[in-house]
């Protein structure tokens, strides 16, 4: 019996020739990432374990991106703890304000993730790196502590679900729409404990930015990881970003690999999608929702704060103004995306349209800062979760969509199909 990409990566890191779903293995880690939320707890637990040194100073990635720039005094203290730890342990890849970007956009961009690697991160959206053909998954703080000390961790080999998307996406339909559609179909526990392997003609045509978006939201279906078979696009991206001289291993699933389920969808006629409150699985066509006025639009996050996303939003916002009742906040995910957005004139378009453009931060996505909602307010957001109270007051609402839908909605003041403002 053959193996899937995910099984091959885990087998390699466990020193085995063959593994199958359900098996428990101990596997070597190529990277351990944490932020200003998961990190402080991880350091407290790490110190209890009494290890003098981390397993590899160049393989620990610390990114201060959630409550930063420091939102309040408690957050400032958490960041200070991480800063001291990073200096004390001489952590090479430490990203503080000014260098910092949203972790899941930043790590691949900095060349810290290679195809075929096994990476854990103290953030559920760590599954993003599967877009590069790596195995990456979110863990909590104690697993981070053990990972940091030992450089290895136990894993249960997940069963894989294969998604095959056929056809060519229509204009205005993006990777975000594909993943929202998928979660809507299988539900928020539809891939619980499993791998989501994204394949097919429509995936091959996606840019890396869109593939990151898709893998990023695998966790919203309960998945352990999302993964895209590496191809020329993967190789091109990795070659362009391989600043750390990493060795890439481009795995492919065998023809006789075992899948627990296979979904095959024709997506040529797919419409832009939107997840209604309060679940990423509560998905509809944007055209079906009726009139829903909004108070805020967020374009950014680890899901949709990349250059392609900003370019898409700018295309719609160029020469227009956002609705006077809509606070529109645009957050480039990293410093280099920010800089490129300035060079290309995107920031100018946004400011001219009446948007606020922020330094990278996860702030509004989780209701931390930089765009918290009041009681009864509604936001359309390119982020990944719309649970009750996610962006602020328990009686506020978040609608998840692509940057095109968010920009169109910012202009009209209500949830809008992008073709209406073209």
């Amino acid at each position, binding site marked *: 019996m053959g193996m899937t990409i995910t099984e091959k990566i885990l087998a390699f890191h466990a020193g085995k020739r063959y593994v199958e779903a359900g098996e428990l293995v101990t596997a070597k880690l190529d990277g351990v990432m944490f932020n200003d*939320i998961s990190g*402080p707890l991880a350091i407290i637990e790490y110190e209890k374990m009494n290890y003098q040194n981390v397993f590899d100073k160049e393989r620990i990635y610390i990114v201060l991106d959630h409550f930063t720039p420091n939102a309040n005094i408690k957050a400032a203290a958490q960041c200070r703890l991480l800063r001291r730890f990073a200096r004390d342990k001489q952590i090479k890849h430490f990203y503080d304000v000014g260098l910092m970007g949203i972790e899941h956009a930043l790590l691949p961009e900095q060349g810290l993730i290679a195809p075929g690697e096994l990476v854990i991160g103290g*953030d559920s959206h760590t599954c993003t790196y599967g877009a590069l053909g790596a195995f990456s998954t979110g863990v909590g703080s104690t697993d981070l502590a053990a990972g940091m000390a030992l450089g290895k961790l136990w894993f249960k080999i997940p069963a894989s679900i294969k998604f095959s998307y056929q056809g060519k996406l229509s204009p205005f339909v993006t990777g975000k729409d594909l993943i929202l559609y998928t979660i809507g179909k299988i539900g928020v526990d539809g891939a*619980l404990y499993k791998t989501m392997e994204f394949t097919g003609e429509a995936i091959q045509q996606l840019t890396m930015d869109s593939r990151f978006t898709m893998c990023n939201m695998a966790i919203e279906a309960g998945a352990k990881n999302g993964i895209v078979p590496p191809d020329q696009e993967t190789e091109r991206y990795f070659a362009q970003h391989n600043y750390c001289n990493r060795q890439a291993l481009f795995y492919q699933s065998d023809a006789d690999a075992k899948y627990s389920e296979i979904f095959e969808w024709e997506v040529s006629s797919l419409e832009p999608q939107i997840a209604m409150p309060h679940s990423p699985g509560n998905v509809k066509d944007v055209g079906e929702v009726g009139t829903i006025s909004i108070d805020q639009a967020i374009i950014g996050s680890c899901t949709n704060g990349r250059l392609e996303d900003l370019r898409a939003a700018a295309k719609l916002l160029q020469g227009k103004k956002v609705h006077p009742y809509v606070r529109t906040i645009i957050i480039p995910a990293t410093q280099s995306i920010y800089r490129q957005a300035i060079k290309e004139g995107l920031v100018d378009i946004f400011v001219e349209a009446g948007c606020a453009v922020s330094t990278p931060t996860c702030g509004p996505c989780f209701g*931390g800062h930089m765009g918290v909602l009041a009681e009864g307010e509604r936001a359309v957001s390119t982020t990944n979760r719309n649970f009750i109270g996610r962006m602020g007051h328990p009686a506020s609402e978040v609608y998840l969509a692509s940057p095109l839908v968010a920009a169109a909605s910012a202009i009209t003041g209500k949830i809008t199909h992008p073709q209406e403002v073209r």
Partner: protein
Amino acid sequence: MGKAFIFGDNVDTDSIVPGRYLSVSDPQELAKVCMEGYQLGFISKITAGDIFIAGKNFGCGSSREHAPVSIKAAGVACVIAQSFARIFFRNAINIGLPVVESDAAIKDIEQGNVVVVDFEQGRIVNLTKLQSYSFAPYPPEIKAIIDCGGLVAYVQTHQIKI
């Protein structure tokens, strides 16, 4: 032993500990906001030893270990669910919060029933209804972590070397 609180499917980590409280790591502080996103002031209802009963996918969403830490520090003795989100499950095992999957218990236990979990025998006993429900034992690798009281103690006890 304690009273059962019944929750539905897909209780997310934002319901357990909302994002705005994540700039805190102290378990006692986190206990004060346990289930705050589900219902304001929920902590006032919890007595030490109480049990959470939930449907599918309990603890879905973020990887925040603050969620199981908060539940444990609030005095909850065990979370019994039809299924758990995987990161929450790992986190709970790692910090020593007992988590058990049992369809039978979920179907039968009602709000306020007095419940006790016997981990040695693999049984959940409902003292109100005089019923018991068995649950499958953990795999040995995971039981070893549980028996130590969590992953930190496990790593210390086994003095694992790199």
